[in-house]
C-alpha cells in the first residue's frame, strides 16, 4: 500500500515525498515519468529498508525553482537534500532521469552514499545506437514503448486519467524537457568523470528498452570503476514495473553483498 505523502523543505522548495519501511535509508530518485505509483516492487524494498522517494523539483505538484536549470543543478540539489534530511549515508537508487541525477551526484560527492544503483539511467549514450524520442511519441506510443509486457501498457491505456493526473503529467513533461531535451538525455561531460564514482555500483537494464537501448550499459561499464551490470530479459524501460520482482531481487542482492 502506498505510504502517505510527507513533506521536506530544501531551501525555499517544499518537496513531496513518499517514505515507508525501516532499516538503512534507501533514497530512490524517480524517472521522468514522475513520482511512481507504489507497486509491490517498492514493498519489497521497504521490507528491508527505509525507502524515501522524493518528487523531483518541477515534477507533479512540486514547484519548479528558477535555480534548477539543468542536470548539474539537480545533482547539487540532491546533495542539499541529503544534508537537510540528516539521515547519514544512503543507498542511492535512481531510475532513468533519476539514475542520471544519481550518477551526476556521485561524480561530485560520494561521501553521503553507501552504494549506487542505476536502473536504465540516462546521461550516457553509445553512438550509433540512437535513443527513442519520448517527446515526439504519441500518448499511446509513450505508454507502449515503456513496457515489454504489453498487458501492463494496455491496462494503463484503459484507465481514464483525472484532470489532476493530466496536470501532473504535463508538469513532468515540462521539467523532463528542461533537463533532458538538449542534448537529448545525456551530458557529454559525464563520461569524463565517471572515475570519480568511488562506491560500489550496479547498473540494471531491460534487454528490450525502447527509450535507452540496453547497449548503453556498456558505456557505464567502461567508465565506472567498481561496477556490475545486470541485463533483465524480456523487459522494457520501465524496469521496476515491467519486471518488478526481478528488479527488486537484483537490487536487494546487490545491497546485501557485504
Amino acid at each position, binding site marked *: 500500500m502506498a505510504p502517505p505523502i510527507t513533506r521536506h523543505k530544501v531551501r525555499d522548495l517544499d518537496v513531496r515525498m513518499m517514505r515507508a519501511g525501516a532499516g538503512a535509508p534507501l533514497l530512490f530518485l524517480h524517472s521522468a515519468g514522475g513520482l511512481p505509483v507504489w507497486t509491490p516492487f517498492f514493498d519489497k524494498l521497504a521490507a528491508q529498508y527505509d525507502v524515501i522517494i522524493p518528487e523531483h523539483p518541477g515534477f507533479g505538484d512540486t514547484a519548479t525553482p528558477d535555480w534548477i536549470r539543468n542536470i548539474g543543478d539537480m545533482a547539487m540539489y540532491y546533495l542539499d537534500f541529503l544534508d537537510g534530511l540528516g539521515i547519514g549515508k544512503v543507498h542511492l537508487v535512481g531510475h532513468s532521469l533519476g539514475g542520471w541525477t544519481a550518477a551526476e551526484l556521485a561524480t561530485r560527492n560520494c561521501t553521503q552514499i553507501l552504494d549506487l544503483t542505476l536502473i536504465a539511467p540516462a546521461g550516457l549514450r553509445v553512438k550509433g545506437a540512437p535513443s527513442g524520442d519520448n*517527446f*515526439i*511519441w*504519441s*500518448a499511446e506510443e509513450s505508454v507502449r514503448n515503456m513496457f515489454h509486457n504489453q498487458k501492463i501498457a494496455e491496462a494503463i491505456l484503459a484507465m481514464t486519467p483525472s484532470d489532476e493526473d493530466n*496536470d501532473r503529467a*504535463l*508538469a513532468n*513533461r*515540462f521539467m*523532463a*524537457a*528542461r533537463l533532458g*531535451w*538538449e*542534448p*537529448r538525455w545525456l551530458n557529454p561531460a559525464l563520461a569524463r568523470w565517471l572515475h570519480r564514482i568511488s562506491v560500489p555500483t550496479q547498473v540494471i537494464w531491460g534487454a528490450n528498452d525502447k527509450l535507452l537501448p540496453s547497449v548503453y550499459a556498456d558505456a557505464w561499464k567502461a567508465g565506472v570503476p567498481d561496477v556490475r551490470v545486470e541485463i533483465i530479459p524480456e523487459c522494457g524501460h520501465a524496469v521496476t514495473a515491467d519486471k518488478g520482482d526481478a528488479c527488486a531481487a537484483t537490487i536487494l542482492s546487490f545491497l546485501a553483498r557485504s
Partner: protein
Amino acid sequence: MHFTGFTLMPYRPLDMEARHKERSAWVVLPNSLYDPVKGADEYESHISLLTRAEDLGFDAIAVNEHHQTAYGIMPAPNLIASALIQRTKRVKIAVLGRALPLTNNPLFIAEEMAMLDNMSRGRMIAGFVRGIGTEYHSTGTNPVFSHERFHEAHDLIVQAWTRSGPFEFEGEHYNFKYVNCWPRPYQQPRPPIWIPSQGSSETVKWAADPSRKYQFLVTFSSTELVTRYLTAYRNQCTEFGYECSGDQLGWAVPVYVADTDEKAKEEAGKAIETLFGDYLPNPWEMLLPPGYTSMSSMKQTMKLRSSLGKVRPTADMLIASGTALIGSAKTVRQKISEMVDRTGVNSLVTMLQFGTLSDELTKRNMDMFASEVMPHFKK
C-alpha cells in the same frame, strides 16, 4: 492601407498520398519526397510571383523561415530576400520573420539583415518569431527556454543595430565579448520590426511596449480572433498611455479574388484545403513541445484541440470563419473594410499563393486583387 504580398513557398509537387503515410509534413516527412528538379522550378516560380507584386503596386513583398518541411522551402529566408533585392527597385522586402531562439548566434541575424538593408538601400522590414513547435524538434533547441532565448536574442540584435560597437553583451544564453556589427543598417536607427503572432497576451504586451511599438501581425486566425487580438493590442497601447497607430496593426491572411464568389471558391477551394489539411497539421506532441507555451496556455490549447477533434477544414469552413478571404472583389473588399472598421488595422499581408495554388491562378488572383481591391484602400 499598406499592402504586402507574401508566400510561404510551399513545395507544391508534394505526393499527398505519401505525405499522409506520415504523421506530418514537418520533421518526419522523408526528404526523398523532394524532387530537386521540380523544386528548382518551385523556387523560380515563387521568386517570380513575389517580384511581380512590385509592378502591381504592392508596398512590400514578404518571405519567412521554416525548417525541414514541405510547408515552406525557405529555411534561409535571407537568401530569397537577397534575390528579391536584385530583381526589384522600389518595393519593401519583409522577412517575417527570423526564428530567433533556434539560432545559437543571433549576431548572424543582425549582420545579415544589416547587409540586406544596405544592399537594398533601406528597403528591409525585419520580423522576429520563435519558430513553430515542430522546429524545436528539427533544430534540437530546448523549447523550455524558447521565450528566454527570444527576448535575449531580440535585445542583442536591436542593440547590435543601434548601439555603437564594440560593446559587451552579457546574457544567460548568449554572451559576446565584442558586439560590433559591420555593416550598420542602412535605415537609421534600424529597419522597422514586425512581430507575427497568434495572439498570446505576453506577446501583445511586449510588442506594444512604448519602447518598441512593433507592428503586431496576426496570422492564420478567424475574423473573430483577429478582431480580438488586434483589439487587445490597441487596448494595451491605451493602457501604456498612448494611442495605437493603424500601422502597428497587421493582419496576415490567405486571399483569393475571382469574378464571383462561386468561381473563387471553385478555383481556390482545393488549394486552401491543402494548406490547412495537408501542409499545416501536426500532432500536438510535435506542435506543442513542452515549454513552448506556458503550462496554462498549453492546457487551454489541448482542451480546445481535443474538443475540435481532427476535422479536416473545408474551404466553406475557412471562408465562413474568415480564416481565408475567398470571393469576388466586392466580397473581399467588404471583409477587409469590416476589419478596418472594427480594428483600425492598416497593414494587410496577403497570401495570394497558398497550398497547391498554381502559378496561373496565383497570377490572375494577384492581378484581380491589385486592380479591384487594393485601389479601394489607397487614397
